[in-house]
Structure formats: structure tokens, C-alpha cells
């Protein structure tokens, strides 16, 4: 029971975190926490099979799906928390509170009586018990869910699949377009330099340098720029080096021949 009292607050906080997080990724993590602690609770409730399924299927697969789609859709789309529909937030909280109170106070008390526990049901193992039920009375439901899963998979594929309306752009096309664009707009036909070229580092977040020393912002991937994680500390490196090679004020020969190359 102690597990419950430890996990319950965590779960509630995580749930609130899910709702209140600014960034979608944080919300996803909170949800993961909730799911895992739920799994533990299942174990505490004498449902080891569900414990495993929760961890593997639910948190492992479905949560990952969410993260995957978040990545696809753009993790950076943090929606502003300002409310557009007039009175929506207020009403939502009011109705929510009311529902919660009613639920907790009334339904909570409704359940009385001793807990019979699952010892004899899990006599020869929880998975065995569930399997007996699953392939006994619930076999039809089981088959139906399989059909459901198939259709869901096909459906998702159909939805996400985009018909190729335009013929695939071959390499020849790409080069011809690049040259035309260069002619018309003067845009450099070649690929943008990869980050880190001629720069102090070859890390992904360090922009490449132009011959005159200015950084090239388009060399860093857009998502890093959007997230503001582009290393720009390039100027201080230059200063350090400049200071390092700065002749002492009173330095002699190699540095005071400024007159000869005018």
C-alpha cells in the first residue's frame, strides 16, 4: 500500500504537469511518468501481466508514437497558453472541479465492502487466468480487437500516405532548377556549406564561416535555429586569438613596419 501513497502524488503532479506544460515534449514526459507509475500500481493490484503490458505496449509503443509524431510535427510548436475561446478556460475548470468533486465524494464512497483479493484467481498465475478468460468467454471480443488493429494500421497508412501527384523530381530536374534559380535570383546553386566548415569546430551547432569571417546562419539546421541552440560564441574565440597574437604595446620589428605596405 505504501507504493500507492508514494506514487499517487507523483502521478497527480505528473498529470498536472501534462496539462500545464508549455512544451509538448515536457507534457509527453509527464505522461510517461504517469504511465510507468500506473504500471507499478497494476503490479501492486495483483495484475503482473498488465504491469508488463503497460510498460511494454502502452509506455513503450504508444508513448513513443507520440514522441515520434511530436518530432515529425515539430517539437518546437509550443502553443501559447493564451486562451482564444471566450470563457472556455473558466468553464472548463468549473465543470472539471464540479465533476471531480462529485466523482470523488460520491462514487468514491459508494464502493464499500471487503476486498476479496485475487489470490485464488491468480492461483496458477495471472497470465494463465487472463488467457483462460480471454480465450473463453471473450474470444469473440479478442478476434474483433484484432480486426480493429488491422483496420487501424491500414487506416493510418492510408491517411498518412500522400499520393504522388507530381512526377518524382529526378536529379537532372534538380540541377536544371538550381541553375535557372541562380541565373534569375543569384542564389548559390551549390549546397549550403555544412556547419563547422573552416570554423573552430565541426559540431552541428557551429555555423560555417564566409571567407571574410562572417558566420553563415543557413549552414545550421532550421530546427536548431528555431530552438535557439546555435552556438554563436564564435566572436569571443576570434577576440581571444586576436588578443593572443596582439603585440605588446611596445613591440618591435615584425609589427611596426606598417608604413611599407601602404
Amino acid at each position, binding site marked *: 500500500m505504501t507504493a500507492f501513497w508514494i506514487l499517487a502524488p507523483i502521478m497527480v503532479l505528473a498529470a498536472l504537469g501534462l496539462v500545464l506544460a508549455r512544451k509538448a515534449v515536457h507534457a509527453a514526459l509527464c505522461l510517461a511518468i504517469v504511465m510507468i507509475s500506473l504500471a507499478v500500481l497494476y503490479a501492486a493490484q495483483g495484475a503482473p501481466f498488465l504491469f508488463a503490458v503497460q510498460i511494454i505496449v502502452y509506455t513503450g509503443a504508444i508513448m513513443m508514437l507520440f514522441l515520434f509524431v511530436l518530432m515529425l510535427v515539430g517539437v518546437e510548436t509550443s502553443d501559447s497558453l493564451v486562451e482564444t475561446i471566450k470563457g472556455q478556460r473558466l468553464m472548463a475548470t468549473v465543470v472539471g472541479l464540479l465533476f471531480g468533486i462529485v466523482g470523488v465524494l460520491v462514487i468514491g464512497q459508494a*464502493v464499500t465492502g471487503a476486498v476479496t483479493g485475487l489470490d485464488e484467481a491468480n492461483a496458477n498465475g495471472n497470465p494463465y487466468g487472463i488467457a483462460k478468460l480471454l480465450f473463453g468467454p471473450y474470444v469473440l471480443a479478442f478476434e474483433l480487437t484484432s480486426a480493429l488493429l488491422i483496420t487501424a494500421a491500414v487506416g493510418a497508412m492510408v491517411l498518412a500516405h500522400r499520393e504522388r501527384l507530381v512526377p518524382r523530381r529526378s536529379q537532372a530536374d534538380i540541377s536544371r532548377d538550381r541553375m535557372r534559380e541562380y541565373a534569375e535570383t543569384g542564389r548559390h546553386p551549390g549546397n549550403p556549406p555544412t556547419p563547422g566548415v573552416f570554423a573552430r569546430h565541426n559540431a552541428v551547432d557551429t555555423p560555417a564561416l564566409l571567407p571574410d569571417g562572417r558566420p553563415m546562419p543557413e549552414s545550421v539546421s532550421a530546427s536548431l535555429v528555431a530552438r535557439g541552440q546555435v552556438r554563436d560564441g564564435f566572436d569571443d574565440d576570434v577576440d581571444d586569438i586576436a588578443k593572443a597574437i596582439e603585440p605588446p604595446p611596445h613591440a618591435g620589428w615584425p609589427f611596426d613596419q606598417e608604413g611599407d605596405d601602404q
Partner: protein
Amino acid sequence: MTEYITLSMILFTIGAVGVLVRRNAIVVFMCVELMLNATNLALVAFSRQHGNLDGQVAAFFVMVVAAAEVVVGLAIIVSIYRTRRTTTVDEASLLKL
């Protein structure tokens, strides 16, 4: 036993409010998942209360359905994103008189 039900009810309500308040489609979707998990918790708790495994089987089925639903839901969100470049729920507001 009642504390499990209370916890599930709290999670369920938070999930519901989350659905109503958040504007990002994916977060809304996650809140729905939270609500489903809350119900699973209640199911398991009751199965233990009554001493038979039906609750757990129901929870199992809920998980299956949730999986199918997430797949299709996310596919829809992706296709909306791809056409509209946005995932906020309020953008798709043409379905009105």
C-alpha cells in the same frame, strides 16, 4: 480500495480539463490517453475488489483500443499538419452553421 478509485477519478478529471484547455492537438490527444489510463486503473482496482480477472481483461481491451485510436488519431493530426502547417485544434473550425 476507495483511494484507488479517487485517484483514478482525479486523473480522469485532470485529463478532461486538459482536453478542454490545451490548444495543441497532440497534447489534447495525450490528455485523452491519460483519461483512458485512469479508467484502466479503476478497472484493475475493481477486478481486485471483486476477485475475478474480468476487470483486467477489460483493461487489456481498453489498451488495445487505445492503441488503435492513437494510431489513427496521430495519422489524422499528421495529415492536418501537412496540409495546414498547424496543429492547433481551433484552426479547424469550418464545421459550423
